[in-house]
């Protein structure tokens, strides 16, 4: 079962994990991205492209579900303003075997970084700066082929 959520509300990990476990799999892998104090960051802001974002994430989840025979795939991405320590993104995968769950989880977070219309702005006190795309993220996304 595929679950895609784009929300300005804090991500509830217990709720998401319960949902991904409800798929009856033997293995659940997850990744959670959290706002860090990178170089003095005090707040993070996420802009997105409503409509396209949900479609792009759903397509990614469907690709992963087929490629790794997943029983479930969840992507939850927060948008709007976030404070240090808050969750930006949660990816969860459910499969019969651990390898499939783990690989699909790595695939989803790698591809999400370069294949979904989100833009990050870092705030440092009163200053705000759009985050530049990283070449390392392109390479990470490309290693999955396709």
């Amino acid at each position: 079962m595929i679950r895609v959520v784009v929300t300005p509300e804090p991500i509830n990990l217990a709720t998401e994990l319960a949902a991904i476990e409800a798929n009856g799999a033997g293995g659940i892998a997850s990744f959670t991205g959290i706002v860090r104090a990178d170089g003095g960051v005090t707040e993070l802001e996420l802009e997105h492209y409503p409509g396209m974002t949900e479609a792009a994430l759903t397509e990614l989840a469907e690709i992963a579900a087929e490629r790794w025979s997943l029983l479930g795939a969840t992507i939850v991405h927060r948008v709007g303003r976030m404070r240090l320590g808050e969750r930006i993104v949660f990816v969860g995968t459910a499969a019969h075997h651990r390898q499939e769950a783990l690989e699909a989880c790595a695939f989803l977070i790698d591809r999400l970084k370069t294949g979904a219309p989100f833009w990050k702005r870092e705030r440092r006190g009163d200053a705000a700066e759009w985050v530049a795309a990283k070449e390392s993220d392109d390479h990470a996304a490309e290693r999955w082929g396709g």
Partner: protein
Amino acid sequence: MELLYFAWVRERVGTGQERIDPPEEVKTVADLVAWLAQRSPGHAEAFAEPERLRAAIDQKFVPLDAPLGRAREVALFPPVTGG
């Protein structure tokens, strides 16, 4: 044609959305970017370096040389940085 702008493109243009009717010689996304750059000082600033831009037509990512075809919604924005 509905245009959408995101992140610093939106900020430089001064709006996130506008409806435009480009002339017939505007055939690709790159043509559109060049044409838009002439609309205002804000547009000029946003579209000065097309190599820094990415695009979507009707909510699908496309390269800048993609033909506009019957596009209803074109979005212009910097490379994405989610996750």
